[in-house]
């Protein structure tokens, strides 16, 4: 009898199982940010999500509240350029929460230590951005509805919400894209600086800017908001999964 006749060859089922296992381990699984984020958030817990940055959140909410109260008073009084103010002020709370929390980690020197944790500061920042975004949306819904109610439906709440959301999501998408693309720590400041510049231009243009924004149909704002939200989500996914250098100070020459 030949030796090979003693060899026990795998059955069809065993072969299939082996092939399945090789395929499962060999083919990279699609990266699902939402599931991954959910799992991460569950592991670290809501309380730890904002550990050490409570003072930044308080300051941002205070400043945001003051700005919104000022804008609200101006809008409710029918003075100033309502659409311009709403457009410019909408990303304020989100920007402030995001910037202050990063600034704090850099200033106290925890930035690099947290970047080397299993759940890195990078992942933590994405989670924080989403929470800050959600918080900003709630504030904007409240403010726009309040202003719309005070102005008795002219402009409509739908219009006000369209302006707010488009500004918020465009800002958030641009700032996430800047942080993803530019690796320098200063990337956090690029979009806020641009937004301040835009604010100055729109405020200088005054009535002309207001007239321009009023001439834009609601649908355009809503489409811009939807596109901004989709772009934000996609950029955040790249930001979350793409490896990124996390060093602040690079080299002593």
């Amino acid at each position, binding site marked *: 009898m030949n030796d090979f006749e003693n060899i026990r060859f795998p059955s069809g089922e065993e072969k299939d199982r082996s092939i399945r296992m090789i395929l499962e381990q060999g083919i990279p699984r699609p990266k699902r940010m939402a599931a991954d984020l959910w799992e991460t958030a569950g592991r670290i817990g809501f309380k730890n999500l904002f550990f050490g940055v409570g003072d930044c959140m308080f300051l941002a909410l205070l400043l945001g509240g003051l700005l919104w109260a000022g804008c609200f008073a101006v809008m409710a009084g029918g003075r100033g350029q309502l659409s311009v103010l709403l457009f410019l002020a909408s990303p304020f709370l989100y920007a402030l929460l995001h910037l202050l929390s990063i600034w704090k980690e850099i200033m106290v020197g925890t930035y690099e230590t947290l970047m080397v944790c*299993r759940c890195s500061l990078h992942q*933590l920042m994405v989670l924080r951005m989403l929470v800050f975004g959600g918080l900003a949306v709630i504030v904007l819904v409240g403010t726009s509805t309040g202003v719309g109610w005070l102005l008795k439906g002219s402009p409509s709440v739908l219009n006000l919400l369209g302006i707010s959301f488009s500004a918020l999501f465009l800002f958030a998408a641009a700032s996430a894209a800047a942080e993803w693309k530019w690796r320098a720590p200063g990337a956090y400041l690029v979009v806020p600086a641009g937004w301040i510049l835009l604010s100055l231009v729109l405020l200088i243009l005054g009535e002309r800017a207001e007239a321009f924004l009023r001439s834009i149909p609601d649908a355009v704002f809503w489409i811009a908001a939807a596109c901004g939200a989709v772009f934000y989500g996609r950029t955040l996914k790249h930001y979350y999964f793409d*490896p990124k250098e996390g060093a602040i100070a690079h*080299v002593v020459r």
Partner: protein
Amino acid sequence: MLSVEHVTKKYGNFTALEDINLVFESGVYGLLAPNGAGKTTLIKMLTTLLFPTRGRILWDGQNILSMGSEYRGLVGYLPQEFGYYKNYSPRQFLRYMAALQCMEPKAAKKRIDSLLELVALSDVKDKKMKQFSGGMIQRVGIAQAMLNDPKLLILDEPTAGLDPKERVRFRNLIHSLAKQRIVILSTHIVSDIETIAGKIIMLRDHALYCCESPAAICENLEGKLYEVPSDTALTGQELLLSERQAGDRTVLRIASDFPVKGAVPVSPDLEDAFLYIYREDTL
């Protein structure tokens, strides 16, 4: 096992590190070089804070950049300037770090208590860290780096700002933590590592100069080191390394390739070797 293969790091036109090749196995490695030699750049690449411009770093054959969080879970890192939240206690801070290391809360609590005991901070575990001295903060840093029982412990200039007593305590602590893991300790202070490091990595001119045991490094200087009275006039062939008190007089430690008349031959230590190797940088 951690291996660094042909790693180069450039910042624009500036080359911070050139073609570094290293293999790390369990034990303490001292990364010894003057400031600006590229120690921190190497450390930051080992922690994935920086990416190599060329070459790769492998953990058990896998690229550390593609391992992502799995690799970070193996690493404990104490940066050069350890940051902390001054209004929190070490226990609160370590709980937070344990959460970021994805540790189970029960296991984390046990581990935190034992680490606080180990670094002698149990008595102050609930005090705000703003009341702590530099040495105490550094011990919190060690505890956070050890939280996940890392296979690779990386300490960047851990004794900077510590007084001599704290420094000795720190050395003993590292020695006790070094079993069954790779410990990489970057410093420019020779006494920090000469008794605890199994191997010394030296960088010079942004390249690897050597990775050898302290004894092997000192051996290269054997027969070249002398002590002479402090009033001896040195020639161009004699290199002054340091001076020390010998009883009530001061003697000079010099290196020379030729026997020096009236000089006493002495055995080199790691500090002599450091000063000799980096003579252009230090003299």
